[in-house]
């Protein structure tokens, strides 16, 4: 199985998908990723550290700083991805980060290296559809899904622009704000997911501010996937190299809630 097919397969399971995020180079990343898979994550999001993570709250900002202080390079991130792919041939892996590290050596270089490392999709926070040409074509050519973000401010007029050219899944940012700060009201998420699903056949995953199994389970009733990031990153911050056991435990509880959610009728 390769590239975008792995993402499709994860969302074709009989239950909603749990998407788990950690930052590359923060703690023992390989062990952290294995813990997420063992805990039951269906899709892995690997954060590429950046000096200026403008869309992130304190938890992921700090993870970026820890990773960069530890000397993490782009080559290291690609190696982490590549080794993950060897250990987990079927688990989809998505890189998430900011434009500058992705385009520094040219979009073609990045797309080729990422494809070679077995990366299935890329979420680039600061490349909106209007600037797609900076990275999108290079990714598509290599079979990597450019995964776009929709937000509470993405109105009906703009939504088709976001969906066109989006692949893999649509990531709904449930709060207008930064990662890990506040949580959206469940009824606003329900309404937003309904609106997105009416506009696209892509699976819709919901993230930003999702921290507990209870929240994740409630979202999984309406969405195709639930993304958890800051709560996991906090465990890495707290436990360092001992984080894997804690990550496995939280992921298992999240997975149980997400996988057993009874989906509301569409």
């Amino acid at each position, binding site marked *: 199985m390769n590239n975008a097919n792995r993402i499709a397969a994860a969302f074709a399971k009989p239950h909603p998908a749990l998407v788990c995020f950690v930052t590359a180079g923060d703690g023992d990343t390989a062990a952290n990723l294995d813990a997420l898979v063992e805990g039951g994550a269906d899709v892995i999001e690997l954060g590429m550290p950046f000096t200026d993570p403008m869309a992130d709250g304190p938890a992921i900002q700090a993870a970026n700083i820890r990773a960069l202080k530890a000397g993490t390079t782009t080559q290291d991130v690609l190696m982490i991805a590549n080794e993950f792919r060897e250990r987990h041939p079927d688990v989809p892996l998505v890189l998430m980060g900011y434009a500058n590290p992705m385009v520094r050596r040219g979009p073609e270089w990045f797309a080729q290296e990422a494809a070679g490392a077995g990366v299935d999709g890329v979420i680039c926070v600061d490349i909106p559809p209007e600037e797609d040409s900076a990275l999108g074509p290079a990714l598509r050519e290599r079979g990597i899904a450019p995964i776009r973000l929709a937000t509470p401010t993405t109105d009906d007029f703009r939504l088709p622009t976001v969906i066109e050219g989006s692949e893999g899944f649509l990531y709904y940012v449930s709060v207008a*704000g930064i990662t890990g700060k506040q949580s959206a009201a469940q009824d606003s998420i329900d309404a937003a997911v309904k609106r997105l699903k009416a506009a696209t056949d892509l699976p819709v995953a919901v993230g930003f501010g999702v921290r507990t199994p209870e929240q994740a389970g409630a979202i999984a009733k309406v969405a195709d996937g639930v993304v958890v990031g800051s709560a996991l990153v906090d465990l890495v911050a707290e436990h360092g190299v001992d984080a894997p056991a804690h990550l496995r435990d939280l992921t298992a509880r999240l997975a149980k809630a997400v996988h057993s959610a009874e989906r509301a009728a569409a």
Partner: protein
Amino acid sequence: MRTPQTSPGDTADTPNSFRQQPDDRGHFGDFGGRYVAETLMPNILALEQAYDEAKKDPAFTDQFEDLLEHYVGRPSPLYFAERLTEALGGAQVWFKRDELNHTGAHKINNCIGQILLAIRMGKTRIIAETGAGQHGVATATVCARFGLPCVVYMGAEDVRRQSPNVFRMKLLGAEIVPVTSGRGTLKDAMNEALRDWVANVDDTFYIIGTAAGPHPYPAMVRDFQSVIGTEARAQIQQRTSRLPDLLVACIGGGSNALGLFHPFLDDADVKMLGVEAAGLGLDGDQHAASLTGGAPGILHGNKTFLLQDEDGQITEGHSISAGLDYPGIGPEHAWLKDIGRVEYTAVTDDEALEAFQLLCRTEGIIPALEPSHAIAAVAKRAKEMDKDAIILANLCGRGDKDIFTVAEKLGVEI
């Protein structure tokens, strides 16, 4: 130099021009654009539309011009620096005196324009980033003038080295948020302002202080600052019956330089020199010269020249001047460098400090450390030019805020 390009919308009778940028997607050649998170995109698009409408509305431009005249104190004088010219022994040196504006720098021109736009858009809360504090003071000033709450993000290191401006902002009623992420300077303040904006898109207007950021900011800030060059162009012709041979301005993000240069871009015989901060020297990494020592990349909403490492991680600029140590530069400068219309150079901390003292002693003007960089470049060039040649430099800020930094550098206790 490449020949000027016409944009696709130009009709046959429009002359070729360097003044038609950006295109309708906010691109200056390969630079500029709108590299922002999706949450901000609808806001950026609404801002672009509001600005397009406002600049065609005589009521908006009338109010802008009225405030510039009666509140800011424009037009600022164009001054022949006779003793400096004599001391340098070369070309005539003229200064556009934007340090005489209300609040002591060119920053207020842009703030007047943006707050009028904010009010027009029904926004009720203003945020800004600041480095040296000049833009923060100018923003706090217009917020007080129009009765809007103001939050200024400022790097913790800058809060320390620019304490007079911090107090001024507080007097004006602004809330100052010291930013401790990164090295605690301008770029980190801008990250934090963007995080605030993304969480408060409905009611908040972000007044960006330089001609950088996502479209339409680079074009909009340039337009508001172009009053500098428009006045200077008329003034120098009135006084000398000709155009200058060389324009000089310092560059952090580049708004004062674009404000001076832009109205002259199609005057083929007028050369232009942008002066970046070389800090401790371009051979090391302790400088803030994005154009002369950086590479193209994407940060803070635009593609431009950045100080960065081989992995695209942003490196911190250094300059004696807090207003110049931003690791990026406005995208229009990146384009003007690319096409060769404007020349760019860099001046070290020590050279700027020397020029600072030179102007104090020859002209009785205490300049800010930012334009001291321009003055240092003027001093070098004037000596190489004929005595009837004219250099016009922008004195974009006054130096009261910098006397503590200068004293420390000179080893004087005050």
